[in-house]
């Protein structure tokens, strides 16, 4: 019996502890729940997130203003659904936000960059989109919508809802997901309309006038010379694709002082655009007529403005047809530069990493020591629009100083198409061949060379020898049309081009 009574007492003690423990756990859970709920309200989010513009844009969006009266709150999109990693994500973002709140100045945060769907995917959860929008085919969905959602069904891995529906949470008039049929209808009526193209009699710089438009642009005469293309092994960040260095002879040519601007590209668009799909092209009866772009999807200028800013998001094909059209309306042979011409024009007689002084090592933001020491921005910031000074958008050419040939934005602002097919080992074929005259690159390929880096590039990519290439599939991944546009890239906004004019051989 004694035995049992001890046991009983022990049992009671256990029970007391158990009940106490349960109460503590219950209270803890309750308080976590309360804290979690209190810290998940819109007003709580807004109290620290010092982005009044995001708050205002949200109130204008369909997630706050819609006919059903349902309001979708901050955490409904910016955290995963409960039971799908909600608390882990809440803690993760919370810690990050507190850190940013205490260490960063809101003015220094690149809000423009945050609007980019790829960037926004880091703090906008696709699971949350489909958690509420579980029916991708509501009966009210249009035929085009049906096509787009079928495409999403087949490409779920590479697509997020916000790739197309970026402005549903924060309204942005420049990011409407629809055909932009008004695009390019500029009104320049008060300016002079040019009737004749430029008359060029000598090999010197000239201003080209596009007939029947108010648009002109500058062309710079580049004398032919022999130069060394590619980078030496000992250049910081030199890569195999830039080697071996080759000796190249270039014939004289003109090249645009700046990248082709929206004004120039829109002159082309206004004169050649087709409103619909491939079918429309077949209807054109004039065999000589150049068929230009279809209406773009959304706002190709990203809302940054057009005018003298470089034209972007047009496809390589569109750039080529632009040159064809320019050739036709001016009577001069315009085309894209070859990769060799581009590098020659960029180097402008220099053999350093850049045509200005400085080492990529000091300018680049890459590497462990950048945690402690900021990269050097003096000098480079005068000549190039790049990640450190662009606020994630393009600028008018007047923002930078020219290179020794007088060219603007060769490095930075936007990548530029070259006519060569891209191949990693493109220079290898010229090895031990002495001086190569006007090389035009590999005979065939699948993607084209792009050069010069862009507003979102690190200083490494701005090096004169650096090479990259088009990514046709990636750049069209969210184009909902079937087939995808031949004229506009839906998912590239940092590539443009500049034109070259050939000297008349006669």
């Amino acid at each position, binding site marked *: 019996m004694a035995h049992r009574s001890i046991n009983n007492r022990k049992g009671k003690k256990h029970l007391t502890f158990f009940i106490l423990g349960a109460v503590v756990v219950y209270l803890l859970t309750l308080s976590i729940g309360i804290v979690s709920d209190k810290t998940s309200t819109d007003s709580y989010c807004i109290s620290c997130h010092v982005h009044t513009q995001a708050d205002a844009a949200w109130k204008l969006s369909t997630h706050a203003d819609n006919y059903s009266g349902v309001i979708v709150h901050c955490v409904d999109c910016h955290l995963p659904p409960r039971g799908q990693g909600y608390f882990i994500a809440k803690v993760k973002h919370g810690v990050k936000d507190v850190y940013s709140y205490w260490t960063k100045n809101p003015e220094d945060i690149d809000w423009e960059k945050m609007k980019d769907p790829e960037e926004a995917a880091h703090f906008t959860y696709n699971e949350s989109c489909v958690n509420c929008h579980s029916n991708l*085919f509501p009966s009210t*969905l249009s035929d085009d919508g049906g096509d787009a959602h*079928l*495409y999403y069904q087949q490409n779920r891995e590479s697509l997020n809802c916000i790739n197309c529906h970026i402005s549903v949470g924060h309204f942005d008039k420049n990011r409407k997901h629809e055909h932009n049929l008004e695009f390019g209808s500029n009104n320049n009526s008060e300016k002079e309309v040019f009737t004749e193209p430029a008359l060029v009699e000598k090999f010197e710089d000239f201003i080209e006038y596009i007939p029947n438009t108010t648009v002109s642009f500058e062309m710079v005469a580049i004398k032919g010379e022999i130069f060394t293309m590619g980078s030496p092994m000992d250049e910081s960040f030199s890569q195999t694709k830039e080697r071996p260095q080759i000796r190249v002879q270039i014939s004289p040519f003109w090249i645009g002082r700046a990248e082709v601007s929206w004004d120039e590209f829109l002159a082309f668009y206004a004169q050649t655009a087709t409103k619909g*799909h491939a079918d429309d092209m077949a209807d054109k009866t004039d065999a000589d007529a150049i068929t230009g772009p279809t209406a773009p999807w959304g706002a190709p200028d990203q809302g940054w403005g057009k005018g003298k800013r470089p034209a972007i998001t047009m496809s390589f094909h569109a750039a080529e047809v632009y040159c064809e059209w320019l050739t036709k309306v001016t009577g001069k042979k315009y085309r894209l530069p070859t990769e060799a011409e581009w590098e020659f024009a960029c180097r402008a007689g220099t053999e350093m990493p850049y045509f200005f002084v400085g080492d990529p090592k000091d300018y680049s933001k890459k590497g462990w020591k950048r945690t402690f020491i900021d990269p050097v921005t003096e000098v480079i910031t005068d000549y190039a629009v790049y990640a450190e000074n662009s606020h994630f958008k393009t600028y008018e050419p007047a923002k930078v100083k020219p290179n020794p040939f007088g060219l603007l934005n060769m490095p930075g602002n936007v990548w530029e198409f070259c006519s060569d097919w891209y191949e990693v080992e493109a220079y290898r074929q010229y090895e031990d061949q002495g001086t190569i005259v006007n090389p035009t690159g590999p005979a065939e390929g699948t993607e084209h060379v792009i050069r010069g880096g862009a507003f979102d590039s690190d200083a490494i990519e701005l090096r004169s020898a650096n090479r990259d290439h088009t990514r046709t599939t990636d750049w069209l991944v969210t184009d909902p049309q*079937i087939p995808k546009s031949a004229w506009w890239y839906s998912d590239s906004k940092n590539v443009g081009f500049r034109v070259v004019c050939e000297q008349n051989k006669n």
Partner: protein
Amino acid sequence: MNDLKKGVSRRDFLSTTVKAGTVGALTAGVLLASCSSKKTAEELGLPPLLDKAPDGKKLKAGLVGTGHRGTGAALNFLDAGSNLELVALADVFQERIDECRKKLKEKDVKIADNMCFTGFDGYQQLMEQELDVVILATPPYFRPQQFAAAIRAKKHVFMEKPVAVDPTGIRMILAAAEKAKALGLNVVTGTQRRHRRDYVATYEQIANGAIGDILSAKAYWNQSHVWYREKQPKWSDMEYMIRNWNNFAWLSGDHIVEQHVHNIDVINWFAGKTPAFAIGYGGRARRKTGDQFDFFSIDFNYGRGLSMHSMCRQIDNCANGIGEFIIGTKGMSNCSNKIFDLDGKPIWSYEYPKNEKGESSGKVKVSPYVQEHIHLVTAIRTGNYVNHAFDTAFSTLTGIMGRTAAYTGRKVTWKEIMESDMKLGPEKMEFGDVNMEFNVPIPGE
């Protein structure tokens, strides 16, 4: 597989097992375990093969496209069970409606004058009526628009195969099918082999491993020439083409799509997938009217070594035949009623109902044309949802992929055809002269 060798059908075997349950728990356990690896008809997505749909509240149907098949489909619907009514008709041509009403009258089915709608938009007026079910049986070109309209009008649908003539139409069908799914609207299609009891029983055997993994497939529909009409002076281009729709690719999809889709669908069904690409050829040797080919021979590649040879021809005095055949790692089958071992020895066959003389009748108990409608009505009345639009859209697209391969001479991939903006037919649907050139396609051009 013992049951196969004994020639006992799966259903018989199951019922035997149940009886054996009395023998002892251990035995039953073993037997049940041996069965559990087999998939049930429900797991295999097979239709309920009832002789008659269950009773329920009255279902009113409207028929769009009142030609021979349309009229037949409407009567099949009425035969599917009790409390079923046909109350509305729509067709482009008035006299087709008149003919249909005459045939219906013989069966004591009367349609009110104000429930008959003509013209290209007749179907839209029909959809506005109080209907539960819409039967779509016009030439295939019109199907996508009409199916989408039916789903918008929230009707259950029976639609004939093929469901479109081009990829644009296929995508319209797929999107509308998704909407139907979300709305709980049932859809049954006219690929009637999926509702033939012999095919269904054979599928059940093969899906449970009777011939192992499928290595090779053949599908063919070789027959004499089909009907055609010469143009009459009083007919405009549009009227002529619609009256002769079976001979114009934009209306029928060509016969590889319009007719051969039945066989293609069987192979897609048995293989459980759609082909990755097609290479093939075809041509026009004897056809009198229109712009279609009269023979095709296509290799459909499903990947992993599996190919379907598809043949279809509509020419008189040739070696003819219609059917399918598949060879697996352990045996082979005609897909419709027989399974053989690899030496060609029959190891299973479907047991048809016996006739008065006690011989096999060679016919399934319920016509597949009626079985389809029994399925639809059963689904509506029991809530056991069915939607065959996807499968039939994919098989139709398979046919379109083959047709494109033959017309162009190129290799055509599934992705390409799925994303193609090919859209057949004139810009506007109206009677009059049509400014379209109907050249027979030349491969390699």
